[in-house]
Structure formats: structure tokens, C-alpha cells
């Protein structure tokens, strides 16, 4: 790392430390200042804290782009890795990650959407519903490595899927479930009640109402949630670490029962386990991972924004 970067990062952390101490001090002791000035000072520190929360992300993104751009070329994006990832490209790694995202979506989306339909349209306010809601809330907080253990024991070993794309997709789907349910539920709840009542009033059954009135209205919200969920899944490392990701494979997975390469696992291995790895290649892998994950985040934001615009026009 060059001198300038070291200095700038040191300064950033110095500001970070000073600001956090100052915020605490300000909150605890009453400074002997006039009220106007103390308000000004307080707001400056609040603003500083906000900058400290927001700037590191931008720094990480910009820094990764600057350092990774040098590695990105045609060979890098279209070749298989060679010499333990030191040469060649990362095409099969990218493909592996997309397979994983598709697999996760395939399992998590139908179950997640159906579960949210149950919770919004059918469930009564009873102990079972409360239990389901509690389970969803807690599922979201289960550590990713624990999902890995679950996937290893159930999908890899008990179901005999072996270390495979299928086992990893199922594991990630279980993890993504909470997010898919929460976001689709919100989208379905946002559909005005009059729509349902209108449909029921002309003699349409409940399921038909859900299928033809509620779901189409909630679709943008559901898509947003699904896209966010698979973007998270694409970045997960710990669950696939134990359920089927491999560092170097001679070929692409030919069936769901094969092992696969994936971007986050590749980044982990080249950064932490391959000696003599060039910095440029590492940053290149990091940049591709960041682009894959964040582009889906941006996509979700666009879908949400456009559906909101449409809602405003109406």
C-alpha cells in the first residue's frame, strides 16, 4: 500500500475515534456553552457521525473500482483460472455464482411468496401465526455458518445430495426465505383492501382474487424483495463453504449434483490461502463480486422506484 493511502486511512480512523468520543462526551456532560452554540456543536458532531457511517462504503466501492479495473480484461472475464488462480480468468466462477443465484431463487421464491400469501390473506391472528412470525424474525438472525451446518447435515449428508450445487442452493434458499417472506408480505399488504373487496363482491373466489388481483398489484414489490434476496445469496460465503463450493474445478457443473466455483469463495481463497497471489488479481475478483452483488441491489432499487412513480401517477 502506498504512503498516501496509509495516511488518508489513518486520518479517517483518527476522525472516527475523535468523533465517537466527542459524541459520548457531549451526550454525557453538559458543556458550559450557550444553548445555541451547544446545539450547533452537537449537530456538527451528529453530521460528522453520519459522514463516518456513510463514507467507508463509498471509499470501499471507489477503492475497489480503482484497484480492480486494472485486472479486468477480455481474458479475465472469458477464461478459466490457471496456475491456482494466478493466471487465466474467472469465467466459470462467475457462471457458478449465477447458477447458485438461480437455484436459490427457484426454491426460495415460490415458498416465500406462498408463505407471505398465507400470512396476509389466510392466517388469523392466533398463536400459530404469532409463532410463524417469530420464526421468520429469528430465522433472519441465525448466523450464516449455522445455516451451513444445517445444510451440511440435512442436504449434503441426510438427503445424499453430496457437496453440490443443489445442496448449496437449498441451504442459501433456507437463509433467503426470511427476507423473501418479509418483503413480499409488505408488498401484498400494500395492495389496497378495496381491490380485494371489489373482486370478492362480483363473486370471485378468494384464491382467484389473490391470484388475479392481489399478486399482480404486489408484483413489483415481490420482485424487489427477490432480487435483494438473491443479491445477498450471491455474496454469502460461509454456507457454501461447507455445502459444495470448490476452489478449482476442471469443468463447469454439468448437473445440480456437481460441485461448483463461486465468486465469494474464490475471493476468500485467493485472498487468504493462495501464497504469491498478485494484488491486481485479488482486486479484480473483488470488483467482479462487488459489481454482481451491487448491480442487483441497484436493479431492485430501480424496480421499486419505477413502481412508486407509477403509483404516484395513479
Amino acid at each position, binding site marked *: *500500500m502506498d504512503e498516501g493511502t496509509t495516511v488518508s*486511512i*489513518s486520518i479517517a480512523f483518527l476522525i*472516527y475515534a475523535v468523533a*465517537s468520543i466527542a459524541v459520548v462526551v457531549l*451526550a454525557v456532560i453538559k458543556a458550559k456553552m450557550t*444553548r445555541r452554540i451547544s*446545539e450547533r456543536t*452537537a449537530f456538527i458532531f*451528529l*453530521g460528522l*457521525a*453520519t459522514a463516518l*457511517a*456513510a463514507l*467507508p*462504503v463509498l471509499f470501499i466501492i471507489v*477503492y*475497489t473500482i480503482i484497484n480492480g479495473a486494472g485486472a479486468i480484461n477480455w481474458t479475465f472475464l472469458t477464461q478459466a483460472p490457471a496456475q491456482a488462480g494466478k493466471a487465466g480468468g474467472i469465467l466459470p466462477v462467475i457462471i457458478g455464482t449465477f447458477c447458485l443465484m438461480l437455484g436459490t431463487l427457484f426454491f426460495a421464491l415460490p*415458498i*416465500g411468496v*406462498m*408463505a407471505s400469501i*398465507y400470512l396476509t390473506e389466510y392466517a388469523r391472528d392466533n398463536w400459530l401465526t404469532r409463532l*410463524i412470525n417469530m*420464526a421468520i*424474525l*429469528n*430465522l433472519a*438472525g*441465525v*448466523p450464516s*455458518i*449455522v445455516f*451451513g*451446518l*444445517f445444510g*451440511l*447435515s*440435512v442436504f449434503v*449428508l441426510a438427503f445424499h445430495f453430496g457437496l453440490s450445487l443443489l445442496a448449496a442452493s437449498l441451504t442459501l434458499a*433456507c437463509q433467503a*426465505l426470511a427476507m423473501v417472506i418479509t418483503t413480499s408480505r409488505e408488498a401484498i399488504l400494500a395492495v389496497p383492501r378495496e381491490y380485494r373487496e371489489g373482486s370478492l363482491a362480483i363473486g370471485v*373466489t*378468494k384464491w*382467484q382474487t389473490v391470484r388475479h388481483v392481489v399478486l399482480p398489484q404486489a408484483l413489483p414489490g415481490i420482485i424487489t424483495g427477490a432480487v435483494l434476496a438473491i443479491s445477498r445469496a450471491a*455474496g*454469502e*460465503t*460461509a454456507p457454501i463453504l461447507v455445502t459444495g463450493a470448490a476452489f478449482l474445478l476442471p469443468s463447469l457443473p454439468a448437473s445440480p449434483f456437481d460441485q461448483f466455483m463461486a465468486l465469494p*469463495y474464490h*475471493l*476468500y481463497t485467493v*485472498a*487468504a490461502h493462495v501464497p504469491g497471489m498478485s*494484488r491486481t488479481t485479488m482486486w479484480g475478483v*473483488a470488483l467482479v*463480486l462487488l459489481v454482481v*452483488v451491487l448491480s442487483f*441491489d441497484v436493479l431492485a432499487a430501480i424496480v421499486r422506484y419505477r413502481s412508486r412513480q407509477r403509483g404516484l401517477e395513479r
Partner: protein
Amino acid sequence: MLKPGTSTVVAASNTGDSLRRRLRLGERFIEGWIFLAGLFAIIVLVGIIAVLIKEGLPIFAHSSPWQFLFGTKWYPVSEPPTFGILPFFVSTLMITLIATAAAVPIGVACAAYLAEVAPPRIRETVKPVIELLAGIPSVMMGFIGLILLSPLVQSIFHLNTGLCGLTAAIMLSLMSLPIIVSVSEDALHAVPKEFKEASYALGATKWETIRHVCIPAALSGIAAAIMLGVGRAIGETMTVLMVAGGALAVPLSPTDPMTTMTAAIASGIGNAVRGGLQYQALFAVGLILFVMTLAVNLIAGRVLERQKRKFAR
């Protein structure tokens, strides 16, 4: 001549009935599936608990719970193997504490700024940026910690290696910020406008209102936000696996290299023989980890629920 006509009508209504009945049956079928899907979250959660207990508990036949929890030696492959998880437990505790201590002042101040002070334009720009932080993969944060932060920590504190608990804690504090900010901000937003208006009417400045009215009123929500941040830090795996150093001794200072519970599972499970002692021991670590995060999340959920009811109108 009337008869055939009547029979046609009857027949028509008959087909209508059977069609409706068939539709109804189809719907019942679909609704059954929907109910099953609704239960799926419970099935997965119970499945996780069952798996952790089934695979993890047998270790206590080999070493007593006391030895397991408070033993300081983790030698899974020596003869005979010993499994003491105290080093992992202490590491997890230490890193989580430091990360939370660093993230809470910044996070709460940021939430207060966004909820009460910031002009709408800044608010609308900063919020998505902080949400973006939540979207950055943990392996990416580990990579940044490994490449950028650890040399810095090493040179500032004159350490043998920058891969230590402190480096991991700094990265984790960043990673627990988004949830602390967003949940605290929601809590601040939920404070009724009348509270603030009453405070202004008494002549308080905006800052005094934030400090003495808004934050105390939202305190339980902020506490829940902090707990969720703690849960996040306890469960984070890749970042600590990459930057915490991986030493197996009980850490004495934050600048020691260490292995957290999550990192111990992630680094050990690949080599563990299925059903062997190490395998069982790692599942038992997973069980303890799960119980810790479950407790934190349950309490946070309960607190949030109560906060919501407090200001419900």
C-alpha cells in the same frame, strides 16, 4: 315439449355445480400448499435446532459440559483429543464488545441526524448509501480488512501481525452500523409529534428536544437496535475468519490473534470426519452460537413489539 328444455336447464346447472365443485377442490388443494408454505419458516427453524442438538449433543459423552465450555485447550486431532471452547467464546465476546462499543455512538448519532436534523435531500442520499453498506458481502469486508486495515493496525500498534481481534472488531463495527442506524431511526420516527411540540413549546432548542425527549422516548427501540447489531456481530463469519488471526489460545488483549466461535466452525468443519468427535464438537459450538443469537433476537423482538404498542394510536 317443455320437458327437454327443462332437462337442459337442469343439466346446465349440474355442470355448473360440478365445475364449481372441481374449482373449489382445486382451490382447496392450492390453499393447502399455501398453508404448508406458511409453516415452512417454523419447519426450517425447528430443523436447525434438531440438527444442532442431534449432531452436537453427543460430544458431551466424551467431554463434560464443564470441560467443554471452560476448557482452554482445543486439540481436536491429538490423542486423546481435547475440546475446550473457552478461547473461541472469549474471542467472540471480546470482538463483539469492541465492535458494538464503536458502532453504537456513531450509529445512534447518525440515526438522530437522519431522523431529526438532516434536510430531506441529505436524508434521501445518505440512507441508500448506508443500506448499500448492508449489501456488501462479508467476504468483501474481510478482504478489505485483510488488505487495507490490518497493515494499518499493525503499524499503529507495533504488532507482529495486523491480523488480530481489533482489526476484526473495527470491520464488524462497520458491518453492524446499517441495522443499528435503520432500527434506531425507525424508533426515533415513532416518537409522537406531540412530545416534540410540547418540548418546543417549553422553549427547548431542537438539540435539547432530541437529547431529553426523542432519545429517551425511543430508548427501548434504540436498545433493540443495539441488540440486533450485537446479534449480527456474534454471527458474522467470513470477516473474522479472514482477519482475526486464527490463534487457538485464550486471547488476553484485543491485539492478540484469535478465533471466534463462527471462525472455529468454518475453519474446522471441512476437515472433520463426519460423525467424529470434532464434527460433534463443532456442531455443539454451533448450538451454543445459535442459542446466543436466538436469545439476543428474541429479546430485541420483544422490546420492539412493546415499543410499537407504547406509541400505537
